[in-house]
C-alpha cells in the first residue's frame, strides 16, 4: 500500500508499530495486530482493484469497423451491462464517397456509371430511378421492349441481392453452410446478367431513353433455367434454414419493429412489409417499367421480428423469379432505345423518382438547370433509413442478438454511406 512493497506482503522485520506501548509485551501484541490489520487492509484493496476491473456494468463493446458481421466497414459502439445492451450507436462514414458532390461534376451518362456502385450487390437496380427521373425531365419515354428488359434485369438484380442475404443471415447466426449454397446458386443469375450487360455487379446498361444493347441469343432460355435454379435454392433454404429450430429460436421475437415506428423512421422494403405494412412501390407507384403488366403478389408478414424479415425476403425472391419468367414470355419486339440527342442536356426542372430496390425504397431527386451535369442530386437510399432505427432497436437486447438484428435489417454499406 505504501508502494515500497507488494500489497499484502508485510515482512515482520520492516514494519513500525502503529501504536507504541510503554510495556514491551503489550507492544508485541499490538505489533501482531498491526500486521494482521495491514494484511487485511491490503487484501481488501486488492479485492477492490479486481472488482473494479471486473466491473461489467458500462462495459463498452466496439464492433468493427473490420468485422465479419457487417457488409463493409461499419462500426457499432455498444455499451453493455453484462450481457445486455444499454445503448448501441452505429458509426458510419468509412465508405463515404461523396456521391452527391460527385454527381454535380459528371454528365448524365457518367452519373449512371457512378451510381451503379451505391448498392453494389443490387447492381442494375441503382441506375433505374435516376434514369427514370432524367427521362421524366426530358420528356422521353423508353420503348416497351426496353422497359421489359429493364424490369427483367431489375428483378434479377433483386434476386442476386436477396440470395446473398438468404445465405448471409444464417452465417451471422453460426450456420456456415448456407452461404456457400447461396453463392453457388447466385452464380447462375450473375452469369445471365453478365451475358446481357457485360458486368456482373456493375452493369451500367441503362441509358436515358432505353437500354444499351439488345439481349444476346439464347439468353431467354438460359435465364429461365437460372430462374428454376433460384426456385430450387429457395426451397432448399426454406427447408434447411427456415425450418431449423435453432434458427427460429434465435430469430423469432427478436428485434420487433412496430409498423408505426418503422414508418416514422422511414423504413422501407422487406423491413416494413415484415411488420405487416402492405406497401410495395412496384405496385403502388406509377412507373413506366413493366410491373403493372405482370401477375404477382406482395408478401407481408404480421410479426415484425427478424424471422419475418427473412421469411418475406425469401418469398419475394421466389416471386421475382416468376416475374422474370413472365417478363421474358411477354417480351415485346421493337427498338430498345428512343430517339435522344447525342449530347444529353436535360431541361431545367426537378424530378423525384423512387423505386422498390432490393434493399428498400431508393429515390433520386434530380434538380437540373439545363446543363450537361445535374445541379443537385439528392440520393435517398434505403439502408440509410433502415439503419437509422438501429439505436432504437438495439436497446435492451442481448449481445448475440445484435448480430441477428443487424443481419435481418440487411444493409449494404455503400447504400448507407453513398
Amino acid at each position, binding site marked *: 500500500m505504501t508502494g515500497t512493497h507488494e500489497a499484502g506482503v508485510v515482512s515482520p522485520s520492516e514494519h513500525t508499530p502503529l501504536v507504541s506501548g510503554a510495556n514491551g509485551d503489550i507492544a508485541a501484541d499490538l505489533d501482531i495486530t498491526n500486521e494482521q490489520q495491514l494484511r487485511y487492509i491490503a487484501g481488501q484493496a486488492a479485492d477492490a482493484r479486481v472488482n473494479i476491473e471486473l466491473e461489467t456494468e458500462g462495459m463498452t463493446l466496439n464492433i468493427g469497423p473490420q468485422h465479419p458481421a457487417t457488409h463493409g466497414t461499419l462500426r457499432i459502439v455498444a455499451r453493455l451491462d453484462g450481457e445486455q445492451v444499454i445503448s448501441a450507436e452505429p458509426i458510419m462514414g468509412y465508405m463515404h464517397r461523396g456521391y452527391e458532390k460527385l454527381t454535380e461534376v459528371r454528365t448524365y451518362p457518367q452519373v449512371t456509371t457512378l451510381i451503379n456502385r451505391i448498392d453494389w450487390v443490387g447492381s442494375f437496380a441503382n441506375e433505374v430511378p435516376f434514369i427514370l427521373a432524367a427521362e421524366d425531365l426530358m420528356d422521353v419515354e423508353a420503348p416497351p421492349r426496353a422497359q421489359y428488359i429493364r424490369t427483367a434485369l431489375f428483378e434479377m438484380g433483386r434476386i442476386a441481392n436477396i440470395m446473398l442475404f438468404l445465405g448471409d443471415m444464417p452465417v451471422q447466426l453460426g450456420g456456415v453452410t448456407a452461404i456457400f449454397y447461396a453463392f453457388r446458386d447466385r452464380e447462375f443469375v450473375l452469369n445471365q446478367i453478365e451475358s446481357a450487360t457485360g458486368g456482373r455487379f456493375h452493369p451500367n446498361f441503362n441509358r436515358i431513353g432505353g437500354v444499351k444493347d439488345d439481349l444476346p441469343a439464347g439468353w431467354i432460355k438460359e435465364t429461365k433455367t437460372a430462374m428454376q435454379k433460384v426456385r430450387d435454392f429457395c426451397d432448399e433454404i426454406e427447408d434447411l434454414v427456415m425450418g431449423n429450430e435453432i434458427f427460429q429460436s434465435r430469430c423469432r421475437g427478436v428485434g420487433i419493429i412496430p409498423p408505426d415506428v418503422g414508418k416514422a423512421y422511414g423504413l422501407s422494403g422487406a423491413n416494413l412489409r415484415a411488420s405487416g405494412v402492405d406497401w410495395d412501390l412496384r405496385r403502388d407507384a406509377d412507373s413506366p417499367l413493366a410491373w403493372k403488366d405482370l401477375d404477382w403478389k406482395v408478401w407481408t408478414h404480421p410479426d415484425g421480428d427478424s424471422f419475418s424479415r427473412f421469411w418475406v425476403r425469401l418469398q419475394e425472391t421466389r416471386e421475382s423469379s416468376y416475374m422474370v419468367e413472365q417478363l421474358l414470355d411477354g417480351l415485346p419486339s421493337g427498338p430498345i432505345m428512343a430517339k435522344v440527342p447525342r449530347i444529353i442536356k436535360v431541361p431545367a426542372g426537378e424530378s423525384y423518382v423512387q423505386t422498390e430496390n432490393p434493399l428498400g425504397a431508393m429515390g433520386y431527386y434530380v434538380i437540373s438547370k439545363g446543363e450537361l451535369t445535374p445541379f443537385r442530386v439528392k440520393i435517398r437510399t434505403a439502408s440509410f433509413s433502415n439503419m437509422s432505427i438501429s439505436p432504437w432497436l438495439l436497446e435492451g437486447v442481448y449481445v448475440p442478438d445484435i*448480430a441477428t438484428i443487424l443481419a435481418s435489417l440487411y444493409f449494404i454499406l455503400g447504400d448507407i454511406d453513398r
Partner: protein
Amino acid sequence: MLSTLLALNPPYWVETLTKIGIGLVAVLLPTGALVYLFLFKMMSFMQSRLGPMETGPYGQLQLLAEFGKFLQKEDIFPSKADRFVFGAAPFVVLVSTFLLVLVLPAGPDTHFVDLNTGIYFAMAVSSVSVIGILMAGWGSNSKYSLLGGIRAAGQLIAYELPLVLSVVGVVIMAGTLNMKGIVAAQADFGIWFIIPQIIGFFIFMVAVQAELTQPPFDMPVAESELVTGYLTEYSGIRFLLFFIGEFATAAVFSAIGATLFLGGWTIPFVDANAAIMDYIGPLVLAAKMIFIAFLIFWFRITFPRFREDQLQRLAWKFLIPLSLANIVVTAIFKVVF
C-alpha cells in the same frame, strides 16, 4: 497387454514407455484423421466446394503444412498476462484428453489399464478440461477473454450433468462401471446398447457436442464480437495445442461413445474373446469412432448456434430431466425383466 499381444515379457518400465508411445499415437492419429476427413473434406463437400487440394494428393498433407505453420510462429504472451497460467492452460486441456484414452478397450486384451471404475474415471477426468479453459480465459488478462472463458465454463459445467447421467443408463444395463465389462455385456446381450438406450445416446451426443464447444453450442468460441473468446490471445504452438485438443477430445469422446453405445471393438457374429480380435479390435473401434465423429461434425456444419441463455435452458430444463427419466425407465426395465 504386451505379454499377450506379442508374447513377450518385458520389464514394467519398458511396457509403460511403450504404452505411453502407443497412447500418444492412439490419440494423435485419429485426431489427424478426423481433421483431414471431416474438417477439410467433409465440411468442404457439404458446402459444395473442394477443400484443400494442393498440398499432397487431394490435400492429404495439409495437416502437415498447418503443423509446420503453427510451429514457426512467434510465441506471444500478452503483456500483463499471468505467464504460468496462460502458458499452462493448453497443456491442462490436453492432459485430460490423453488421460481419457487410458480406459478405452480396443480388444479383449488390448487396453492400457483395466480399471474397475473405467467410465467413472473417464467422466471425472474429462471435467479437468474446464479448468484449462478457465485458465486460458483468466490468464489472457483481457476482459473479453475472461467473459468468453466464464461463458465457456458455464456451458461446460452445465452439460457435464447430462453427459454423466446419460452414461448411467448404460451402466445400469451393463451392471458394471468397467469399460471392458460394458463391451462384454453388449456382446452377451447380442444387441448394442444404442437400441435400448436410444434416448441416452441422443443425450450423450448433444452433451458431447456441447462439451466440445462445437456449433450449435459454440457461443463462447465463435461469437463474432468476442473474436474467439478465451482463445483470442493464443497464437502459434499454444493455439495449435488447443486446436489439437479440440479434435483429440472429439476423437476420444467418439471412441467412448462407440464403446458405450455401439459395442466397442466387437463385431456381431464374431466371438468376442477370439484372439484375432486383439488385432482387429482397434480397427473396428476406429471405424465406429469415425462414424460417431461423422455425426458430431455433421451437426457442427449444419446448425446455427444457440444463444447463451437458450443453451443453458436446453441443458438444465430439458436434457437433465430427460436423462433422469431415462435412468428411471432403464432401472425399472432392468429390475422387472
